[in-house]
């Protein structure tokens, strides 16, 4: 590979892409790897949030992103994109979901379509790192705790003080 392949045109991904792929050891070689990732991509499209090993999630993430970005770029009248969707989505009703639900959802996004978190691994258990992979805009509650009401955050401390001061001044007015 000394010259960029110009026959295909792809949109830039909004995620960090490794310079080379992980092989995700399996006895069936390169094809087996894709078959394995196919299950993950299908599950992600179906459930919108999944928990799995970090390496596999990170590999599957790129494929899910590209599948969505190709669907956005070419639409459902493009034969090659349809073939791709047919290959990557094992449950065929998800092809409809991809073009009718996910494409309208992500059309105007400026950020990546998926999100990945590091998850704790159970102890004692498998050594592998765990992660959570999700589609953005999913219906589930956020995985991050809402910290905006934390009493110790600086802006909350200041607001509290301001409130106190306001009350004090009001009381002083009443007394007068």
């Amino acid at each position, binding site marked *: *590979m*000394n*010259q*960029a*392949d*110009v026959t*295909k*045109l*792809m*949109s*830039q*991904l*909004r*995620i*960090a*892409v*490794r*310079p*080379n*792929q992980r092989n995700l050891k399996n006895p069936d070689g*390169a*094809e087996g790897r*894709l078959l394995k990732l196919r299950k993950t991509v299908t599950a992600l499209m179906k459930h919108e949030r999944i928990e799995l090993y970090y390496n596999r999630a990170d*590999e599957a993430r*790129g*494929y899910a992103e*590209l*599948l969505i970005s*190709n669907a956005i770029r070419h639409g459902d009248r493009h034969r090659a994109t349809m*073939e*791709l969707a047919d*290959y*990557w989505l094992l449950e065929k009703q998800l092809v409809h979901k991809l073009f009718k639900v996910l494409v309208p959802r992500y059309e*105007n996004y*400026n*950020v*990546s379509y998926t*999100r*990945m978190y590091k998850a704790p691994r159970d102890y004692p258990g498998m050594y592998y790192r765990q992660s959570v992979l999700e589609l953005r805009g999913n219906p589930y509650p956020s995985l991050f705790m809402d910290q905006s009401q934390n009493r110790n955050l600086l802006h909350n401390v200041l607001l509290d003080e301001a409130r106190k001061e306001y009350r004090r001044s009001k009381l002083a007015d009443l007394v007068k």
Partner: protein
Amino acid sequence: MNSARAMSKVWAQQSAFNRIVTFSTKATQHAAAAVSSAGAEPPGEEKTSATAPAAAQPPTPTPTPVRKPIVPSNYRFIYPEFLPDPKVEWRNPIREKLERLDMLDRRRQIDLPEFYVGSIMAVTSSDPHAAGKTSRFVGICINRDRCGLRARFVLRNVIDHQGMEVVYELYDPTIQKVEVLRLEKRLDDNLFYLRDALPEFSTFDENMEAEHLEEGAPVPVNDIKVILRPRPWLERWERQNLRGVANIDQYIKDKHRKSAEKVQKPWEKYDLMKQYRSTIPEEEQKEVFAEVHTELHSLELQRKRNKRKRTFVKPKQLA
């Protein structure tokens, strides 16, 4: 906006490969622009500038619509060497940019026309071993590879019953003239199989006249199928799914057919990430070509003008 900011932080933490995340700053900029244009909460800096006393300063200049050059979509086929190498380890944005400047400098000195694998070309170059002398080689371009200043192509011809191939670097300063005698494409990405084909398929007349192609006409694809000579071959052509070869089946046995089937990789067309890693994404291509487009376009116009001059002179000489 907030989510974009948070995401950029997450990226920064997650990305162990900082050099490939060329989009990280841009994405947030775009996001900010989109959000502010949509009328949602503008970023803090803009707010302060808006509330700043306007009396002391002249009003901030209204954003004039910057007209961007419209880059033709076929530039990536005509000038593939301007795109950087997709291999991340070899990327170096500064070097790439400097190389592009050097390439444009070279193109100002010499006319490097559009050509493809399968085009018939003539290259005049000075010979490093014979001072003051030049050599002209006519042949068919059988391969194009490498990018940047190292871009090169291979010409092949049969001269005195002997197959000859010359590798030229496109930006080599010893090259004096590059002519395209017949502009066309072939069915395959490279034509190395001509080495094993009958010699008439790679024999071209040295005194061939340049053929005229109408302006704006699409580049014709020559769907000629070459005839291979019997085995032994230089490569296992039966494994390469060649479209420009007529008679592979004639020479291979069942065992070859079986082994060829075994090494096929039909799943690769679904391997999106592999394709992504071997290409330069569209946004980046646009950036590269926006940088060199005006210069290349003016060079093209210059070439057209020169051509017209030449065609105008010709009938004079006949009369």
